[in-house]
C-alpha cells in the first residue's frame, strides 16, 4: 500500500455507501489464518491502545484474558454514548466487516469461542446484514452474536456493558473487585474493545506491527478517528495520523472564530484555541497537557458563545446521565451542576464559587465505580482553568450577554438527539474525510 492515509477509511466514497463483504474482501483480502501468540505480540509491538477513551494498552488486556485459563468472550463495543461522537457509528454503518474481522481475530488470539457485537439500535439492521453475510460465506470459525445497547451515555462503559449482557441493569460495577478480564459475560474472561480498536486489529492481523507503525510517530504510532464538530456545529469524522498538530488535523483552529476547544468528550477538557492548535494528536501529548484524547471528540465552541454556559449544560447533562449508584457521584455531580448553573446564568453568585467547585471536584474524583464522576470533574476543572477570565467576570458582574444564547452542543434537553454527520469542508492533503452515512 502506498499512501499512509486513509487507512481505516480506505475505500469509502463520498456517496455514503456501506462496504459489503465482497467489497471488503476485494479491498483488504481475507483475514490470515489464526496464529494466536503472534497476533498478541503483533498488537503489542504495534503499540495499539484502546480507542474507546481509556487508551489502555491492548496487548496487556489480551494477555490477561488469554491467561485467565478459561474460554473467553470478545465484545465489540459500539455503544457510543457521547452525543457528539460519530466515529463508531461510521465504522459500524459503513465498515462493519473491518470491525467484525478485528473481533474475530482478537477472539482467536485470546482463545474466545464467542463474539458479541454490542451496538445501538440504530445500527441493528446493518450489523444483522453483515453477520448474516459472514455466516453464509462461512468465513468465521465462531458465531457472532448481536446485542442492542441501551441508549444512554454510560452504556458503553466496560462493566456496564458486561452487566447488560449478563441480563442485569446495564450499570457500572466495581472493576477493582471483579475485572471483566477475569469474570465478565456469563462469568467468562471477557475482552471488550471499542469498535475502532478492533478495526485497527483487523489491519494489524493482515499487515503486521511494522506496517501499523508507518503511520504516526514512534511514541504515538498509527492513526486515529476524530469526530470534529466545527464552529458551524456540523460533525465530521476525520482519520489522522497520530502526532500531527490538532489544528492541522481538523483544518486550523482560528482564535477569532473559536472561543475554546472541547477535547475528548463531555467528560474531557477545554483547551484554549492556541494550545489546541499546536497540541499533537496523541493520548500521551494530551495527558501531558492535562487533557485526554478520550473518544476522539474535538468540538470548536464558536466565539459568540459563553463557555461557562456551555459547561453548565454539559455538567447538568452528565448529572442526568449518571447511574445513581455511588454516593459521592450522586451528590457531587448534582452539586456541581447547580454551582455551574449559578455561575453561568446567575443572577448573582454568593461567596467563592470557584473554591466550592474545586472542593466538589476533589470529593467526586476517583470515588465512583466507574470514571463518570472523574470525567465531570475533569471538564469542570478545565473550564475554571481555561476560562478563568470569564469566571471572574461572571462572579463580579453576573452572566455575560452570550450566556443567554441557545445551547450549542446537544444535551439531554433535546431528547438525547444526536446530530447526523454531514460532509465537512474539504480537508488538507493527506487527510481522509468520510462523514456522510445513513
Amino acid at each position, binding site marked *: 500500500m502506498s499512501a499512509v492515509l486513509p487507512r481505516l477509511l480506505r475505500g469509502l466514497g463520498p456517496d455514503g455507501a456501506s462496504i459489503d463483504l465482497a467489497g471488503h474482501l476485494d479491498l483488504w483480502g481475507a483475514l490470515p489464518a489464526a496464529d494466536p501468540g503472534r497476533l498478541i505480540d503483533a498488537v503489542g509491538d504495534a503499540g495499539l491502545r484502546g480507542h474507546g477513551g481509556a487508551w489502555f494498552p491492548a496487548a496487556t488486556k489480551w494477555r490477561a484474558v488469554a491467561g485467565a485459563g478459561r474460554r473467553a468472550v470478545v465484545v465489540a463495543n459500539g455503544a457510543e454514548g457521547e452525543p457528539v461522537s460519530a466515529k463508531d457509528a461510521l465504522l459500524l454503518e459503513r465498515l462493519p466487516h473491518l470491525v467484525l474481522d478485528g473481533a474475530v481475530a482478537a477472539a482467536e488470539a485470546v482463545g474466545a469461542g464467542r463474539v458479541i457485537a454490542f451496538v445501538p439500535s440504530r445500527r441493528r439492521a446493518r450489523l444483522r446484514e453483515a453477520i448474516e453475510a459472514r455466516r453464509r460465506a462461512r468465513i468465521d470459525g465462531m458465531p457472532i452474536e448481536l446485542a442492542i445497547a441501551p441508549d444512554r451515555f454510560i452504556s458503553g462503559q466496560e462493566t456496564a456493558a458486561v452487566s447488560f449482557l449478563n441480563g442485569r441493569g446495564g450499570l457500572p460495577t466495581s472493576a*477493582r*473487585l471483579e475485572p471483566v478480564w477475569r469474570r465478565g459475560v456469563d462469568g467468562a474472561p471477557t475482552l471488550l474493545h471499542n469498535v475502532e480498536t478492533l478495526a485497527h486489529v483487523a489491519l494489524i492481523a493482515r499487515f503486521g506491527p511494522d506496517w501499523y507503525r508507518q503511520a504516526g510517530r514512534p511514541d504515538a504510532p498509527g492513526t486515529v478517528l476524530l469526530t470534529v464538530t466545527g464552529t458551524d456545529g456540523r460533525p465530521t469524522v476525520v482519520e489522522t495520523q497520530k502526532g500531527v498538530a490538532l489544528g492541522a488535523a481538523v483544518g486550523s483552529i482560528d482564535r477569532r472564530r473559536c472561543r475554546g476547544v472541547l477535547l475528548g468528550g463531555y467528560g474531557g477538557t477545554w483547551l484554549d484555541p492556541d494550545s489546541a492548535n499546536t497540541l499533537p494528536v496523541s493520548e500521551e501529548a494530551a495527558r501531558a497537557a492535562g487533557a485526554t484524547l478520550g473518544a476522539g471528540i474535538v468540538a470548536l465552541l464558536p466565539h459568540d458563545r459563553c463557555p461557562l454556559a456551555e459547561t453548565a449544560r454539559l455538567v447538568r447533562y452528565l448529572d442526568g446521565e449518571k447511574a445513581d*449508584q455511588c*454516593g*459521592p*457521584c450522586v451528590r457531587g455531580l448534582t452539586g456541581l451542576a447547580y454551582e455551574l448553573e449559578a455561575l453561568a446564568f446567575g443572577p448573582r453568585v454568593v461567596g467563592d464559587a470557584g473554591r466550592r467547585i474545586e472542593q466538589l471536584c*476533589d470529593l467526586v474524583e476517583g470515588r465512583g465505580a466507574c470514571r463518570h464522576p472523574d470525567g465531570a470533574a475533569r471538564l469542570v476543572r478545565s473550564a475554571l482553568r481555561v476560562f478563568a477570565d470569564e469566571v471572574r467576570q461572571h462572579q463580579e458582574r453576573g452572566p455575560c450577554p452570550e450566556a443567554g444564547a441557545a445551547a450549542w452542543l446537544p444535551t439531554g434537553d433535546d431528547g438525547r438527539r444526536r446530530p447526523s454527520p454531514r460532509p465537512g469542508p474539504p480537508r488538507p492533503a493527506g487527510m481522509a474525510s468520510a462523514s456522510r452515512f445513513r
Partner: protein
Amino acid sequence: MTRLAPQVIVVDPVACDGHGVCAELLPEMISLDPWGYPIISGDPVPPGLLREAERAVASCPRLALHLLPAPEVPPVKPARRQVAMPPPRTRSRS
C-alpha cells in the same frame, strides 16, 4: 500469599450507603466526606492495624468494604484529602 503480603482497603462505592461504621472502627485510615461516605487511605494497611481493618470489613452493614492484596489493584492516585496515618512501610517483594 504470605500473611504479611501488603493489603489495601477498597470500598465498593455501588454497595456503600454511607453508614460510617468503618470510620468509627478504623479512624486511622478512614474518614468521612461531608455526605458521610468513606474516604479511604490507599496505602497498605500497617500490620498493627490489620486486626482493626478486618473488623471494619466484617462490620460493614452493606458488606461494601474489602481487603485486597495490594498488587492486585491498580495504583491508587494520591488522595487530595490525605488521612493522617502512621508512616507507610516500604513494600518489598521477595
